[in-house]
């Protein structure tokens, strides 16, 4: 499959009063046509900064792209002028934000907000744009589109507002859709509806999706591939099955074992000890080493490179080095691996 977006060695810093915060420290990934790539990680892992930099939405004053390229259709978005970026943003690449309460303009009717990108990017007349906006409302499953068109955001529930935000994002049939925790603020039943809607729409208009979330249940539901971020880096990337059933990085192990499984009630939940690193002074070695019970001396001294596990699966941990000692993953992870083995054999 062809790549629609390639991010190469992206490095971003924020200049603050207390010094330089190295939010993104060399991120590489590509997005294929029609796929959903989920990015998981905790707050401050750099997942939102990565996607905001693709949209060029980082604050111009204190953020700096120090290194790296964001290649979209052969163009480097990192070096594009603001004017040419405006032609891409909202048309070729669009974004769904976390909080549908704040990402809509409260003083503007819904219909007008949906028409805005259509008129701006597609040279349609007002009447045509209205027709298209109405179609979009129906597409995202909002009943009584005629009536809803003239209403304000406060007249919509949270789930309905997120549908409107999705309608705006899809208005110009974008090639890439970035969804930054689109369902975190919603209830489970509404979340399920929105996820179904997004998958359905993806099939219809063949968009590639970057889906940011920290809910591994949602990841298992939507993703084709998964990138796990920690301390401003991608520490593991692979297909959804590889990450869930054959994870290699101790941080991924920690994430997976810290979730209670629905069928067993263990005595104590595994908790990753400690807190995320301070990126004002990132550690010299592996950023996860201080919280990692499998850490070795080299983890404190040198950052691990990406080791290849399979054609699609890479992980940055010294444990994959040929000289590293063999370690047993935690029980919860081992159970998953075994279960996957049996499934494979059945197949």
């Amino acid at each position, binding site marked *: 499959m062809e790549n629609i977006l390639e991010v190469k060695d992206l490095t971003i810093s924020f200049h603050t009063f207390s010094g330089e915060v190295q939010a993104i420290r060399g991120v590489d990934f590509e997005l294929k046509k029609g796929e959903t790539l989920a990015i998981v990680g905790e707050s401050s892992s750099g997942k939102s900064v990565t996607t905001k930099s693709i949209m060029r939405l980082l604050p111009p004053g204190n953020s700096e792209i120090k290194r790296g390229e964001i290649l979209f259709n052969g163009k480097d978005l990192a070096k594009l002028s603001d004017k040419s970026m405006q032609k891409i943003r909202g048309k070729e690449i669009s974004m769904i934000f976390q909080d549908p309460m704040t990402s809509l303009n409260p003083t503007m009717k819904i219909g007008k907000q949906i028409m805005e990108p259509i008129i701006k990017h597609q040279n349609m007349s007002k009447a045509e744009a209205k027709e298209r906006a109405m179609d979009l409302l129906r597409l995202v499953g909002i009943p009584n589109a005629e009536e809803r068109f003239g209403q304000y955001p406060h007249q919509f529930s949270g789930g309905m507002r997120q549908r409107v935000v999705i309608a705006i994002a899809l208005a110009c049939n974008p090639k890439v859709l970035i969804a930054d925790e689109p369902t975190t603020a919603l209830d*489970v*039943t509404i979340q399920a509806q929105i996820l179904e809607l997004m998958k359905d729409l993806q099939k219809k208009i063949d968009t590639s999706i970057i889906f940011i979330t920290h809910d591994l*249940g949602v990841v298992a539901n939507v993703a084709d591939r998964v990138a796990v971020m920690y301390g401003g880096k991608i520490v593991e990337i692979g297909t959804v*099955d590889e990450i869930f059933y054959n994870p290699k990085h101790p941080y991924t192990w920690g994430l997976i074992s*810290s979730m209670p499984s*629905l069928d067993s*009630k263990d005595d104590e939940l595994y908790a990753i000890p400690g807190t*995320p690193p301070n990126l004002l002074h990132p550690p010299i070695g592996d950023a996860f080493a201080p919280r990692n019970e499998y850490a070795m001396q080299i983890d404190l001294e040198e950052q691990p490179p990406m080791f290849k596990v399979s054609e699609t699966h890479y992980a940055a941990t010294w444990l994959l080095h040929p000289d590293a000692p063999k370690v047993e993953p935690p029980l919860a992870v081992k159970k998953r691996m075994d279960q996957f083995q049996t499934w494979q054999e059945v197949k």
Partner: protein
Amino acid sequence: MKQREKLVEIRNLKQYFNAGKPSMVKAIDDISFDIYKGETLGLVGESGCGKSTTGRTIIRLYDATDGEVFFNGEDVHGTKSKAQLKDFNRKMQMIFQDPYASLNPRLKIADIIAEGIDIHGLAKNKEDRMQQVQNLLETVGLNREHANRYPHEFSGGQRQRIGIARALAVQPEFIIADEPISALDVSIQAQVVNLLKKLQIEHGLTYLFIAHDLSMVKYISDRIGVMYFGKLVELASSEELYKNPIHPYTQSLLSAIPAPDPYSERIRKRKVYNPNIHEYDEGEDLQMREVKPDHFVYCSEKEFKQYQTIHTK
């Protein structure tokens, strides 16, 4: 089942906002349940279903429109002297959802934690007060040196620990935790849940755990109540509720949770709840009925018989 002692009894509790006006909201509409000593009762439901209001009404942050709450056999909402109220407030504490908004940014941690100690006169002198604060900080996994810092110096998970220490400071018997982990990162959630469990065993605490994250609720709770539009629709032990949900709303809620398991996600079918399927007649007698031992469902007489034939074999 062990012999169980009721700690909190909620009887026909109602909480209407804007009562009498056209904008009246029945946030809690006639619910009754018991909380047993030493257990964790989980309360789940969608936003707006009244689960937080229930917690807040039990602890008297709101005055109930109608109904009774008994704590150790005593009526909480009845008229009381100030001294009685104070005593009651000591036994029942709350942990709030947002660890950023629930700590006063202008107070030092020591003063935040010791506020209850001061009000209830639980410290003999200044040294004793500080000693208690430092012990509490260590109990929740922070350092004693943290006592002299301000809230902004802490991360979300640490702040939630401070909120827990504050609740523990007055040696309560019953803690209402209103979405205590929703605002925290995944890796930190497990830390806080483990801490709550540990404290429960060490101090013999009883919890009302309000949340919308169903997998965590199942993990921490002994029993779970499901709320829908101000009503409690199902109440059972957490194992039982997940294995055999009876009320169609519970079934739909459970079927909507995505599991962190790509294989099961590919085959998961979501059930949609349509309140009209009940086809209740006007004035039909709807109430919580015990379909199986310790498994209560809100239903009509007719449904009760159906549920019984389907679910008890």
